């Protein structure tokens, strides 16, 4: 058993867990954050993507007990603030970028991270390439690509006008 002190969505959480516990199971179980989902066993689908110390990771392949004390975890539950949707969440809704909603948390976290890492600008081609680690079975990705561009634009990232309107 290992006792961890983590910063989860800005709050300090102290948990004791078995060494075999995966980060995703820690989040979904003891921490009660079920918005992070599990869609595969082999790190292919990206439904479990969260940010760990500011970087996106597949939380289904991270052993919780290997995290440093004070490690910072950001999940979908921490994205909206005071009930107001983040511009990326808003864009996903307005662009109809989600259907069943199961993969959506992983996509939203990935999209926000992507926008933050590309202050110089995003294009549809870059977005498609950067979405390589996330699977969606419902949307055909088209509206997700549109949403990432629209959300990024709302976050101040330069995006070709033509592609936002597409």
């Amino acid at each position, binding site marked *: 058993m290992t006792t961890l002190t983590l910063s989860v969505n800005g709050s300090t959480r102290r948990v004791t867990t078995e060494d*075999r516990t995966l980060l995703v199971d820690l989040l*979904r*179980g003891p921490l009660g*954050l*079920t*918005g*992070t*989902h*599990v*869609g*595969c*066993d*082999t790190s*292919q*689908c990206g*439904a479990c993507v969260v940010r760990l110390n500011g970087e996106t990771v597949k939380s289904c392949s991270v052993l919780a007990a290997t995290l440093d004390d004070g490690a910072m975890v950001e*999940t*979908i*539950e921490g*994205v*909206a603030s005071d009930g107001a*949707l983040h511009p990326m*969440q*808003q864009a*996903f*809704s*307005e662009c*109809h970028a*989600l*259907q*069943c*909603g*199961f*993969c*959506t*948390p992983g996509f*939203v976290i990935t999209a926000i991270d992507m926008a933050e890492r590309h202050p110089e600008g995003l294009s*549809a081609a870059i*977005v*498609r*390439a950067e*979405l*390589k680690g*996330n*699977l*969606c*079975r*419902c*949307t*055909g*990705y*088209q*509206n*997700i*690509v549109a949403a990432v561009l629209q959300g990024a634009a709302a976050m101040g990232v330069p995006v070709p006008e033509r592609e936002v309107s*597409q």
Partner: protein
Amino acid sequence: MTKPSQPPFTGRTEDRRFLTGAGRFVDDIELGRQAYMALVLSTHAHAEIRGIDTTTAAAMPGVLAVLTGADVLADGLGPVPPFFMPKLWGGPDGYGTLRPILVTDHVRCVGDRVAIVIAETRDEARLAAEAVDIDYAPLPVVTGARAALADDAPRLWADCPTGNLSCTLRLGDAAATAQAFAQAEVTLKRRLISPRVAPSSLEPRACIGVHDAAEDRFTLYTSSQDPHGFRAVIARNVLKIAESRLRVVSPDVGGGFGLKAHMHPEDALVLWAARRVGRPVKWTATRSEALLTDTQGRGQEVEAEIALDRDGTVRGVRVEAWHNLGAYFWGTATPPIFFSLQLIPNTYTIPAVDLTTHAVFTNTAPMSVYRGAGRPEATFVIERLMDEAAAEIGMDPAELRLRNTIAPEAMPFTTPTGMTYDSGDFGGMIRIALDRGDWAGFAARRDAAKGRGRLRGRSITSYVEVAGVMNERMEIRFDPDGALSIIAGTHSHGQGHATVFSQMVADWLSVPLDSIRYVQGDTDTVLIGRGTFAARSSMLGGTALMRAKDALIERAKDMAAIVLEADRAAVEFSDGMLRVTGTNKAIPLTEVAKLYYLPAGPANALGIGLSGAGTAAGKPGAAPNYPNGVILCEVEVDPETGAIVVDRMLALDDVGRVLNSTICEGQIHGGIAQGLGQALLEEVTYDEDGQLTSGSFMDYGLPRAGHMPHIESHLLEVPCTTNPLGVKGIGESGAIGAPVAIVNAILDAVRPLGVGSLDMPVTQVRLWSALRAAEEMRGAA
């Protein structure tokens, strides 16, 4: 044909919870004292079980119970028959299997359920499951449908009188077709395969069983497209209890695609286990378990022939097909068998067809519905034949289609397979597609591609879908405070029903959208429902909802007549008000609703509560709406490497009256993506021993963002005449036309090099191999 006019899309009412992580999927539910189930699955494709030793497993930490097929029998649990056999749709008698929820002495596919372990934690259950020791005596294995019909093939079901053949379905007129072939100037024959694919909803199947000993009543939380259907099968067949003793709740469902249209053994196992251990029992599939145990789609091999004249007049089509049922006739395997033949005439005036398919048992996972369910198989056959025929007689493939297309004046049109299309302008759709997609400008694009060393190919695909099976019930109920609830018999799992149906009711009744609560997926609150599959919800759910609204207004009029002191016949409803004709007397509907809930007053006589229920019905096997469309596709192929890029995709869809164009287009995008997966990437593979070799997403490849082209989608409205809303289905459309659109475009690109046939999925390796083989042939010649 008109373009729908739509208000701007501002998001769905259900989006917020998914975007904030507040969605509630089955695995998100945690009940007190919850235990976990793990499966012991057959590692052999075909074997006798000589013995099962559970002693080690039972003694492991945290283990509450280890149960086997013998326990199933001892507890009197029944096996599961097919949901229905082809006979119900006018087809043949056939051999339908009775599948126990745990097998006892004979496994027939890898993934057959042999035992279960219940333990305190998921890990403990899985580890103990791995310790269950099963002594198998392996039997010979057969995985292919045609191979399974050989005289010496191993037999799966000793009491099936026709070997491994469950049934043979025949449609059409053999004699007329033979005559058509004899008279035609050109005939050609092709072998066409729609391989097995895995539906792969991103949420793996999951369920929680609860047994309430006080009431002797069960609750099943499950990821289901059809909670009432699950309840009926499990209560009647397995638990043998009254349906009222089982509540099925299907909360948020992470994708269905047909996979979750029928129960799987786990849904019954968790209930039984819960009763056995006296605690809630949860099971969630891992992805590798899902690929092993989920029903699969498609799996058909076809020998297809077409007869036509050199002027392009198609005279007849003859097909013999083999559908791979897998080890059981399971769930809703009948629709794919039927539709794979019935849809072959497509949008064409083919005078004679002779269509046969054999449903065959093999040592593979059971086949059932998957998005399209037989329609993509049929469309693949006819549209491949049309392209081959066009190439053979040297005619533009669009021209060949136009020559044979059913004219709008011919509606209603009955096909030789017995479908009566009520409406549609198939030729008009093709012409618009040719124009929008710049069919005429293709030669220039092909030449430009050649300059870059690429081969460019194009295709035009026409397709039709049948939508709207079975009946449906919807209910609208005012609550005492004037807010209202829609109690839906359909089940939305991504389709946006909460948005679309609520918007319809808000518009009809002039009530605020946010005063509407949308309720679905709970057999305790929904009287009856059929769930959502086969693109049925807009027509049947929508029509039933409209009738529920009408019934509710009629009842509201009773109250309005009393409180407005008017003649009942003079009361009318408009703009949210009940008005007395010719006067200024009026009362808001919401006020009438509140009166219905007062503890005294007119409700005493009229009955407490204001609600309305409505029913809409389709016919089994001959559903009454026919969405249709056209896909234009262009691909580029690298002749050296076999790399394929789907470069352009234009989809035109006639979905009748459009309820929400953004949601419709979302359905089309998703369907096309699944179609692209089938065309280029996805294939369930078994080796010669029946071992699944596509057991994880490391090997089974779903399309990713980078695989998909930008889809240009247009909706066109040819109102449906079989329902008052004028709507047609949308859920399966993209998945039906896309596979053959992509394959035909690839073949168009490589046919000049001598590649005349390609099996799905057309992977880069497969295309590369075909190109090299053709090169060798050219070299030899």
